[in-house]
């Protein structure tokens, strides 16, 4: 577990974009959105500078040079939050939570390579970061679902673990939790990508024990104290797919909900990896609709050989629009 002390670039990105939440203090109205930050980062790159340069004491010239893309006063107010930064970093640190920025060498390459500017500028986490580079099977589904589907999902997680593949999921109740439980129970490795409440979830006893055993890493693009929002949950789906080499959707609504949106985005647009849908048990309109969009039926693999075949199917559609993105992580 690492990523602290923070690099100067990580400090700068935190100051510019992160809410730095402690208690219920009001958030700064000046925070840069991901889009605004990307714009500033590009501008700095063109100037031959980097975010950390904004923190060298009293560099008035650089602030003025950023005026065309970002209000000088707003930037000044953001980077002067240094003491607040030290407060939250200390809090994370004492709870074994790390943070890294897109500018850091440890930042998972597959996220940067696959998501480009959509890669979260900051990644918070608790647990062994090496698990983030291991790829594996993503399992997603809606929160509410029935018992047989939960068992099916646990079995899928279990199989991934027995085949030595990492399980990537969302850490929400229902499907996500079942997949992760199945994998952990079989001694497998798990990446949980959270949309909210990293601090609380990391301290939960069952998670804490798996983290200590280096089986589980919990990560989130959002502040460890952030609460649930629909927007975050949607954005988080991108990260789940980007960290995996194949995905299984076990349940989904049609035309609504985060699971649907995330799967459709993969099938129609990003095409980072093969997407499977559950093929046995109770039928589902959502899954049928995904099939129509090109999702593959889960072939219910029974052993490691069959399971491995899932990761290199013969019939994945070639990338349509984002030609420059590679299908599998570059080395």
């Amino acid at each position: 577990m690492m990523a602290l002390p923070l690099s100067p670039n990580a400090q700068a990105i935190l100051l510019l974009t992160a809410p730095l939440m402690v208690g219920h203090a009001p958030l700064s109205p000046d925070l840069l959105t991901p889009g605004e930050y990307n714009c500033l980062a590009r501008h700095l790159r063109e100037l031959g500078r980097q975010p950390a340069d904004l923190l060298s004491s009293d560099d008035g010239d650089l602030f003025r040079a950023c005026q065309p893309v970002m209000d000088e006063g707003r930037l000044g107010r953001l980077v002067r939050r240094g003491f607040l930064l030290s407060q939250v970093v200390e809090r994370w640190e004492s709870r074994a939570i790390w943070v890294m920025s897109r500018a850091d060498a440890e930042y998972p390459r597959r996220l940067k390579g696959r998501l480009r500017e959509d890669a979260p500028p900051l990644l918070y986490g608790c647990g062994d970061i090496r698990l983030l580079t291991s790829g594996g099977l993503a399992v997603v589904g809606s929160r509410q679902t029935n018992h047989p589907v939960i068992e099916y999902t646990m079995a899928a997680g279990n199989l991934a673990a027995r085949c030595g593949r990492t399980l990537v999921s969302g850490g929400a109740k229902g499907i996500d939790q079942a997949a992760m439980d199945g994998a952990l129970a079989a001694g497998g490795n798990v990446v949980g990508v959270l949309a909210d409440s990293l601090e609380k979830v990391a301290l939960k006893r069952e998670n804490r024990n798996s983290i200590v055993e280096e089986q589980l890493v919990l990560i989130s693009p959002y502040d460890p104290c952030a609460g649930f929002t629909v927007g975050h949950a949607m954005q988080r789906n991108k990260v789940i797919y980007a960290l995996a080499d194949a995905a299984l959707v076990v349940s989904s609504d049609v035309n609504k909900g985060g699971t649907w949106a995330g799967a459709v985005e993969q099938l129609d647009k990003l095409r980072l990896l093969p997407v499977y849908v559950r093929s046995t048990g109770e039928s589902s309109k959502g899954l049928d609709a995904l099939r129509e969009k090109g999702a593959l039926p889960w072939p219910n693999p029974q052993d490691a050989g069959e399971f491995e075949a899932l990761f290199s199917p013969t019939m994945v559609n070639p990338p349509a629009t984002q030609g420059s993105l590679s299908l599998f992580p570059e080395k």
Partner: protein
Amino acid sequence: MTYQSEKSLELLRIGSGSPGARFRDGQEEAIRHIVEGRGRLLVVQSTGWGKSFVYFIAARLLREEGNGPALLISPLLSLMRNQIAAAHRMGVRAATINSDNLDEWSDVEERFGKNEIDILLISPERLANERFRTQVLARIAGQISLLVIDEAHCISDWGHDFRPHYRLLERIVRSLPPNLRLLATTATANNRVLADLASVLGPRLEVSRGDLNRSSLSLQTISLPSQAERLAWLAEQLGTLQGHGIIYTLTVRDAEQVAGWLKSRGHVVEAYTGQTGPGREELEEALLHNRVKALVATTALGMGYDKPDLAFVVHYQSPGSVVAYYQQAGRAGRALNAAYGVLLSGEEETNITDWFIKSAFPSRREVAAVLEALEKEPDGLSVPEIMARVNVSKGRIEKTMALLSLESPAPMAKQGHKWQLTAAKLSEGFWERAERLTALRRTEQEQMQEYVRLPFGEHMGFLVRALDGDPSGVTPPPLAPLPTTVDEGVVREAVAYLCRDGLPFEPRKKWPDGGMPQYGVKGFIAQGHLAQPGRALSILGDAGWGGDVGRGRSLDLHFSHELVDACVKMMGEWNPQTYPTWVTCIPSLRHPDLVPDFARRLADALGLPFHVVLAKTNHRPEQKTMANSSQQARNIDGSLAFCAPRLPRRGPLFLVDDLVDSRWTFTVASWLLRSHGSGEVWPVALAQAGRE
């Protein structure tokens, strides 16, 4: 930001109240360095040099340019009060949030919110407080423009008074971005501490360092093993010393005892300790304006206390390290040509510093017990809940939690009011540091004993060398040595004084958390079933009667008639009302006759009847082997019973026991007696159990 020299000087002159004041060596450079944002600065200058002018003037200048307020972290409350007044004179709006001014918190917060405060002063403990951080500081943390760390040597593991909460400060500093202004100050830092500070505060740290030699101080050491001899020396010499000063003791109890003795000899002195409460400010003022000859103080009278004409600092016992001694003695003679720094060295000081050294860190057993208790509770535990599960004292549990939670990463964290295990394990580095610090404390203790043995005239040179200063400018002491002998008659009177005192103790008013299930009681104890305030003759093993009690308990299995006489004398002076009409005692299965025999003899000497009415129903471990109040309460639950057919008398009574520790035994016995119809119950104990 540009520095304004004239404005700065004007502030100095207003603040010092002297129109012709000029900056001291290094002062203006330091202010300029901070204001211009040239990087982190460490100022190593003796108290009285004027470090506060540096940060107050800097804070004021920063504010005038529209920057946010400054935050000052200092372990010293007395310093804060004095400084807030000084800041006020300069038009710097200073405020403090500490455990003594809870009622002002919301006002301070509101003023902060309105941007009406220029500098906020808080303690490192406050900074570590979860509630304070999440509910108060979080709202303003984003605007802080300057962080001032006072007593910065505490950051260093090699500092002479390592304070656990500075570990937190160290981590905060490490994650501060370089654009945040940071000033660290200390009066003393040897080379090792400086190197440590540089590694925490950054390689580009600028250091401003002054001279350590104090030519106005006449240092002297006098060995007087017994407390009575030292009391006699103080009684004889205090009147001959010019001016006003401080007498330092190692413990609160010593401060009170020494002050009591000196008052009884007609000296105008007062005790000043961490337990003095809200009267502390008044006492500081009294010394400042020479209304007392001396304050008899623990180190609660802190480093920041500034009385330039303080004429003497006498130590009743040797402190644990040369740096601590230098800082305390160095408070004398700042603005005088000559002043005394006299160290009286006594036999108990090694035991006391040993105790401080040993108790600085929790033991592996204590840590394992606490972690195991937390391991079993996925939802976490509060401190009282931990107390109910592990046989470790409350103070030790709190120390364990404080130290472990300051580790990075910490094996436990406080979520709301409960402690929970985190995803981190306690590193072996924790124990290595504990061992290293313990070894360092031993070396410091030895160095201090070396200092005690020095001949007159060599002390200042020794101190300056020990602190890595330049001893070449050290001059001979300006004053003649004080007498090193004491009058035997005064020593005898001091012995009598030490034996005279009884110690009052208050009754418990509430049953333990969870009540006493076997007795079926919980919550508050009914008014009519409470014990009255009690008295203990001594402290177990201490000077005075403590030694006799210890011998009676463990060697003779009999309490001497001198103890009976001493109790009679104490009870005569105490004279509780309504005065008891009979005597009973606490039973024991371990030594069935020891206490009843003593109580019967005491009753005879008082001319009161003695009756046995209480019995021990089953054998339990001694109360003093129970480490905290919850464990002691559980140990006593159901173990005492009322055994007489009826109460022999209804009037008030003395309830006698040999030791009082948690007070649960007295509480339960009083409740039994009163619920069987007795009058008021006045507890009497031969001794109070030891420290904590």
